[in-house]
């Protein structure tokens, strides 16, 4: 019954809905959502905020996707890919909102595929290579906790679209944080080797907390989570350096972002006007 229907929907032309494969150029993730911006909301500020939050999510999602075929177990590969998919969805909604309010009317693809590394504003933590599983888990715990605290505040945003994107994201990020927290406990409280690696992963991630807190001050929330989880895991609370060398929010990226974007953008740039 319905399986046929799905195929028919894909295969048959229904006027301007005609489509036959997945790809870019299909749809606006905010299709039919009012693009109005309430009085009193600064459009440039709102656009900039949507853009940085989208960049964090897109770059983070790309790193998580790199675990596909490389994760320690199939279940964890599926988990990391699912979490990446949530972040990708958040990025798409945020880019679409940015295009509505920044005056350019650009679609999501313009932001994701046709900006260079210097134009990205994601935090450096998001772009660092995956390292081992423990580093990825440590990063996910910190990133999800930090983003969750920010999104919780944004549910009260004066912009109703951003507030709605945030309210949806809160549920997803809560889930991501729990997944990461449970792995920190398993690894920290596991073997001597897993303990050593989990500790090293948290130390490496903690070196970037200064950048995160400068971008959005969620120090209280993130440190509360780290304290709770490291205690349960039998790990020491990592030191938080007061400041880091540079901030991705100002376009100061590590050497790792450009290669990531080259891969992410290669197909879209090879066929810039293509639609599928």
């Amino acid at each position, binding site marked *: 019954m319905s399986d046929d229907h*799905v195929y028919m929907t894909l295969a048959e032309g229904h006027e301007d809905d005609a489509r036959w494969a*997945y790809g870019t150029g299909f749809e606006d993730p905010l299709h*039919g959502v009012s693009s109005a911006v309430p009085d009193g909301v600064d459009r440039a500020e709102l656009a900039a905020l949507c853009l940085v939050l989208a960049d964090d999510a897109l770059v983070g999602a790309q790193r998580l996707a790199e675990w596909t075929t490389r994760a320690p177990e199939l279940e964890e590969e*599926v*988990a990391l890919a699912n979490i990446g998919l949530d972040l990708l969805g958040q990025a798409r909604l945020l880019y679409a909102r940015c295009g509505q309010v920044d005056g350019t009317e650009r679609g999501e693809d313009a932001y994701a595929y046709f900006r260079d590394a210097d134009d990205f504003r994601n935090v450096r933590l998001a772009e660092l290579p995956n390292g081992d599983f423990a580093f990825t888990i440590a990063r996910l715990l910190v990133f999800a906790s930090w983003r969750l605290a920010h999104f919780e505040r944004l549910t009260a945003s004066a912009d109703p679209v951003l507030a*709605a994107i945030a*309210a*949806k994201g809160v549920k997803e990020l809560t889930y991501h944080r729990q997944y990461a927290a449970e792995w920190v406990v398993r690894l920290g409280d596991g073997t001597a080797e897993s303990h050593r690696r989990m500790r090293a992963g948290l130390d490496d991630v903690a070196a970037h907390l200064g950048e995160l807190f400068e971008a959005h001050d969620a120090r209280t929330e993130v440190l509360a989570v780290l304290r709770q989880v490291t205690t349960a895991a039998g790990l020491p609370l990592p030191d938080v350096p007061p400041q880091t060398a540079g901030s991705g929010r100002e376009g100061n990226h590590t050497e790792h972002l450009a290669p990531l974007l080259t891969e992410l953008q290669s197909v879209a740039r090879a066929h810039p006007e293509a639609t599928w």
Partner: protein
Amino acid sequence: MVTVLTDARRIAEQVPDPELPMLTLADLGVLRDVTVAADGTVVAALTPTYSGCPAMPEMRAGVAARLKDAGYERVEVRTVLDPPWTTDWITPEGRRKLAEHGIAPPGPAPRPSPGPVPLSLSATHRAVSCPRCGATDTEETSRFGATSCKALWRCRACQEPFEYVKEI
């Protein structure tokens, strides 16, 4: 106009979900509203389950196609993001159909709480009944599954693995 609205709503409600095709969009709770504008345009409002749900374009195309096939010339499908979807919106009928197809329906969605991160490492989760044999001696094998909305579980009584729509 009332008849048009009733008919259009009935048609939109019957569109199957692309990823859980035993459910209609109404069963899943993602069809938020159907209205008829003054000019006769049928406006259907859909909400995504997860931010990254890849099935949204299929749902939208399915609703538009069914309504057009039924003779409605002007159809508009809108996205609504607020309030965010929750598994609590899956109807009793939808829950029954899930179980009938071997998928355990979700429990009540968790309320947001600012407290500590729940750290449940062992199989001490709430009892989820096996959709095949009804036993409650079940355990989670993976919190993530083939789609964003499902987890993998196993029944320790009948040994069968099953999917579980996780509450959100």
